[in-house]
Every structure is written in C-alpha cells, then in structure tokens.
C-alpha cells in the first residue's frame, strides 16, 4: 500500500516537472473592459497558442487606476507581468529610466527594421526616446467634439460650420437660449476638463509650445499659450455651458447625459460614439446617425495648426526579465493583418495607417483620418507629464480654472512650479 502511494506520488511529481518544462506562461496585464476588444484578444491568443503549443498566454484584468497604483509593487516582485498596458508618457519614461522595462530597439530593427516598418512612424516615435524604442504600439485615440444633431437643429446651430472658438461660443449661446444644456462634462474625474485646456493651448501656441514646455525651455507652462488657454477656459466656465452639478459628475454620468439626449455636446474620445449605447439609460441612446462631430475649434490669434491633434496613444510594455515569447507574441498580435482585424471592430484607431480603411463607423473613420494626417499628436497631459504634474496638478488646476477658483496666471505658475521639480 505504502509502496503504491510512493509510486503514485513520484509519477505525479514527474508529470508536473514535465509540464513545467514544456509550458512557458506569458502573463499579460490589461485594463481593457470592452468585450469586443477582449474577444479579439482571446482569439489572437488562441491562434498563437495553437501555433506555439508550448506557450500559454494568460490575460489578467485590472482597472487603469488600480494598475497605476499597483505596478511599482508588482514590478519589484515575482508577480511582475511579462506584458502590460501603457499610456506612454511620464510613467513609461520612469519605467525605462529605472530599467524596469525592456529596450525593444534591437527587436524593432532586426531584419532590416521589418517590425518597425509595420507601424506608422508617428506611432513608433510616440514610444521612443533617447533613440530607443520602449514599447509595442497598440492603438491611438483622438479627442473631438461630438454633438446631438437633433438638439443642434432645435437651437438652429450648424455643427459643420463650427470652425472657430467664437463660432463655438455662439453655438453655446444659441443652445442656452433654446433651453438646452450645451455641454456635458465630468469635473469630478477632472481629466475630462483637461481636454479643453490642452486643446486650447495647442490651438494657441501649437506643437512648439508643448515641445518647449516639456523640454523646460523658455517660459514653459507659464508661457502665453498656456495662460491664454486658461483665460479662455475660465471664460467658458463663466458662460455656464455645463450640466447642473457637473462639479460632482464623473465621466460615466457625462456620457449618459449625452447618450440620453440631455446635453448637446461632449468633448469625447474617438470611441465615444461607438460606446454610447452602453452609456444610455435605455441601452440604445440617441442613435449613431444622430451624432455629429467637429474638430476642436481654432482660437482667435492662435498660432497652432488646426490639423494638430490631441488624444491618447497606447502600447504594450515588456518587463525587463520577460520571456522571449512575450515579444514574439506581441509581434504577432500587432501584425498588420491583426491590426486590420482590430480596426474592423470599430473600437479605436489602429497604429498601422493602412488598417484604418477597415473602420466602418464614419465618425471613427474620420477621426482616424485626422490622426493619420496630423502633423503632431499630443498625448494626454495626465499621462505625458506623469502622474504627479499631469494627473495631480494639471487636472486640479483646470477644474479650478473652469469653476473660477484660481486665476489663469496662478494656475500656469503652479503647473510650472510642479514641472520644475521634475
């Protein structure tokens, strides 16, 4: 009896050893909630595992905020994921400087730069610095104004004609006169307000003012572009275009207000129209055909090129000690063919320019084309400037600007002071 147990135990140990040596597990950390996108990833993982029976890819979900807070601990423990989602910017820079992530330059340049050439150059540039590539580009997003065609018609506003800030303010006045809430915004989450300030600064001073400020040249975030952006934002707040209680509203409530037809405009992401039915109280909302879109208007006397865009760029980072299969899997997952499949989901803007033709949602397609033509795509400031200056200070200042708590000069000063300490 005892002998048999010993044999069984030995056999089991042997089997588990065999299993361990045959299987490589690649762990992947993602904040993705969209079921369409997750289904896409599941099928990509299935295909890869079928082609590589010795590799197993495990996806782990964590919300974006939780991920940001937990990553430092995870990366210094044995629970470090091999692959994890990134918004680029300051966090990615700190990760590369502390050697937590893998330098992918050699992989990108192998075979005459085959992998590098599979993406649009802007996408690779967004994740390169110090001449090195630090991430595998995944998707882009762009911020635009979305409007309710019915409400605009009711107020006598032509959405397609809004080109300048004055047009925009005039539209707000008309909407208010018609008893319609012009804009839904979520100031509790703060970052929805920073879209306004960042775009206004981009229209005021153009890409150069951002490049200079980030490089700590000249007056930085105290320069005219940013102060004027603050003034325009404060004036916008004084015109009271937002829904009642916007100070306590989050992004989700904002989307619901727009999806249900209670607010005429929202400054949203390129995937906002596609996600609207989910946000609507009746899970249908105002309907895709009722949503119009216009680019962020130019400002009077602004030096910025109106073709410049603002939005996100997402990528996958590879942990420094990740298994080689992690990189190989990402190469497969973001191949042009898979990018085309991803684009066909109408989930967001792919990082391979040619894949954009697969997008069928007209609003998303138009955003993808704008990004494709854009001479400069500014990443979200709460990512680009890092969690301290961007998420902490900029987001706080923009909310105080719009609610009139702080003067534009003081807000610019506080942002620059925080940036100086970086």
């Amino acid at each position, binding site marked *: 009896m005892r002998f048999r147990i010993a044999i069984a135990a030995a056999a089991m140990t042997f089997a588990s050893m065999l299993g361990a040596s045959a299987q490589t597990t690649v762990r992947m950390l993602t904040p993705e909630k969209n079921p369409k996108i997750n289904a896409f990833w599941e099928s990509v993982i299935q295909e890869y595992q079928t082609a590589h029976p010795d590799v197993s890819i495990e996806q782990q979900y964590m919300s974006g905020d939780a991920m940001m807070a937990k990553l*430092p601990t995870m990366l210094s423990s044995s629970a470090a994921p091999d692959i994890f989602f990134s918004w680029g910017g300051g966090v990615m820079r700190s990760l590369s400087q502390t050697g937590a992530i893998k330098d992918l330059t050699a992989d990108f340049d192998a075979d005459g730069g085959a992998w590098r050439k599979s993406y649009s150059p802007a996408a690779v540039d967004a994740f390169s610095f110090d001449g090195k590539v630090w991430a595998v580009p995944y998707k882009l997003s762009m911020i635009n104004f979305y409007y309710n065609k019915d409400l605009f018609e009711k107020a006598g506003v032509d959405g397609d004609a809004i080109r300048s800030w004055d047009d925009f303010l005039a539209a707000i006045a008309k909407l208010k006169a018609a008893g319609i809430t012009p804009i839904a915004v979520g100031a*509790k989450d703060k970052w929805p307000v920073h879209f306004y300030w960042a775009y206004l600064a981009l229209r005021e001073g153009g890409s150069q003012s951002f490049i200079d400020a980030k490089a700590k040249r000249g007056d930085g975030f105290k320069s005219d572009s940013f102060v004027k952006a603050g003034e325009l934002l404060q004036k916008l707040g004084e015109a009271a275009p937002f829904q009642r209680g916007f100070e*306590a509203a989050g992004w989700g409530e904002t989307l619901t207000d727009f999806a249900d037809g209670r607010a005429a405009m929202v400054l949203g992401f390129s995937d906002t129209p596609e996600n609207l039915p989910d946000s609507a109280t009746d899970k249908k909302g105002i309907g895709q055909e009722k949503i119009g879109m216009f680019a962020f208007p130019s400002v009077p006397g602004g030096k910025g090129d109106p073709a410049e865009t603002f939005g996100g760029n997402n990528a996958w980072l590879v942990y420094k000690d990740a298994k080689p299969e992690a990189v190989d899997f990402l190469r497969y997952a973001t191949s042009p063919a898979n990018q085309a499949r991803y684009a066909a989901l109408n989930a967001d803007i792919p990082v391979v320019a040619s894949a954009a033709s697969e997008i069928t949602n007209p609003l998303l397609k138009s955003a993808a084309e704008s990004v494709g033509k854009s001479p400069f795509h500014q990443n979200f400031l709460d990512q680009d400037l890092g969690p301290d200056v961007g*998420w902490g200070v900029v987001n706080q200042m923009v909310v105080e600007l719009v609610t009139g708590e702080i003067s534009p000069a003081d807000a610019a000063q506080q942002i620059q002071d925080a940036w100086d300490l970086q």
Partner: protein
Amino acid sequence: MSEFAPSTPAPASSLRRLPKSPSLGATGFLVVFLAPSLVLFTTLVILPMIQAGWYSFFDWNGYGVPENFVGLRNFQQLFGSSVFLTALRNNGLIIAVSVVLQIPLALWLATLVSRRFAGAVFFRAVFFLPFVLADVAAGIIWSFIYDGNYGLVASLGHALGFDPPFLLADKQWAIYAVLVVIVWKYFGFHMMLFIAGLQGISPDYHEAAEIDGASRRQRFLHITLPLLKPTIALSVFFSVLGALQTFDVIMPLTQGGPANSTQSMVSFLYLFGISRMKIGFGSAVGVVLFLMCATFAFAYKKMVLKDE
C-alpha cells in the same frame, strides 16, 4: 522564580497549573508561542512602518530604489499645503460630529431598542444594517441619493417645490453631505456597543431607584450613564480612530472634491501620494497620521481607559 518547583504550595493562577516540562520553562513557552506572531507582526507591521518612515525622507516615484534624499522637504511641503490643512480640519470635523452627534444618537437609540418590546430585534437589525454594508457601496448609494437630477434629494426638492441642490457639487456643503453619510454608516456600530453595555447593567438598580421614586431622567443620569461610562469611553476611542482613518466613504462620494473641500488625511495620502506616485510624500503623510493616531491611542488609554 520557583513557581514550577514541585515543592511550591497549590498554585493559584492557571499558568502555575501547567504541567512541569523538563525542556520548556516559562521563557521557553513564551519563545515557542510568541515567536510566530512576533515574526508576523514584525514583518507585516513594524517593518513597513519603519520603511514608510525611511521613504518619507526621499523624493521617490516607487520604481527602483529611493535615491533622491530630500531631508524634511516632504514634511515642509505637507504642512505648507492648504489641502492638507483642509483635510486636517475635515478630520477634526468628523471627530466632532462623531462624538457630539453620533454617539448621543447611538446611545439614545440603544436605550430605546434594548428594552423588551415586540419588534425590538427588528429595529436593532435595521439600525445595524448600514454598518454591515461595505463602505464603498454605502458611498455609491449615497451619491445616487444626493444626485440633483434623479436622487432622493431631487425628488424631495421637487415635492417641496424648490430647485434641488447638487450637494456634492457645492464646496460649501459637500463636506456636510459626507458627514451625514458617515453618521448614518457608523451609528449602528456604536448602538450595538451600547446595547451590550446596557444589558450588562443589572435591572435591580433601576428597580430599586424606581421604588425610591426616581424619575426616568434621574435613573438615566445617575444609573445608566455612570455604569455605561466604560462603554462610552470605548465608543469614543473607536470613533476618533475611525474618524482619523476616514477614506472609503469619501472616494465614491466626492474623491475629495469639489476643489479638495472634502479631503480627509487618508484620501489626501492616497490622491497626493500614491496616485501621483510620490511615495516619499505619501509616506510623510502616513508618518504624520500614524503619530497622531498613536499619540491619541496611548494618551487616551493612559488617561481615560486606565481603569479598564
């Protein structure tokens, strides 16, 4: 010490009744039984505390190892921060409301539902229910209640014919809205403590006083209250420590906003330390918070709970 020598007279305490072991003396027992919990306590409580103290002297984003030593700069920034001062004031307000409003309310309800009447158990359960609820769930529920468009507050406003306010969007009023939730959430816990305390008071005292012609008020003031003193002292102790650590309720309600008017020290620690990846600064907040809690706990134990 000769407690374990066979010649000692019949042992009085339970420790002395332990069988004499040739290998384990009293010290031996202490080592064997205390070691596991001491190891756990050291690695999970003492070490992180020392670490936080160490980090608080660095400017560190959490990645790699802390290298940029900044001395006391984090503490200077902390006490120079108007938001931290608001958080301190809010914590003070929460303590005041807990002690001045919540505990008397809990005591009053406890005296009502500790009597034997049909439905007493039901009311006890109902009053205790908010405490059973997760803090975050309570926060979310109340954020719906306070919603100026669809919430209970909105319906109330419409019914009474005034424009419903957005309480959580108003930086003057948001903190009071949060205070209501805190009182609602925790009074049940204190009520339960008081019910237990009341049940420990022998009915003989009340009977005797009643025979002597004492009024209900007199009986409460001269019998219930003095005999309940230990429970009240404990209740205040929990209230203050809980108030200093307020966090879970605030996050779903306001995230410390609008304009940082509802920050507590812990939400400040989280939003200005951890979320901004300023681990050194966050640690400095943690150190200050710890010192406040520890000072209070020791002082209160020495001065108020000394009899128990």
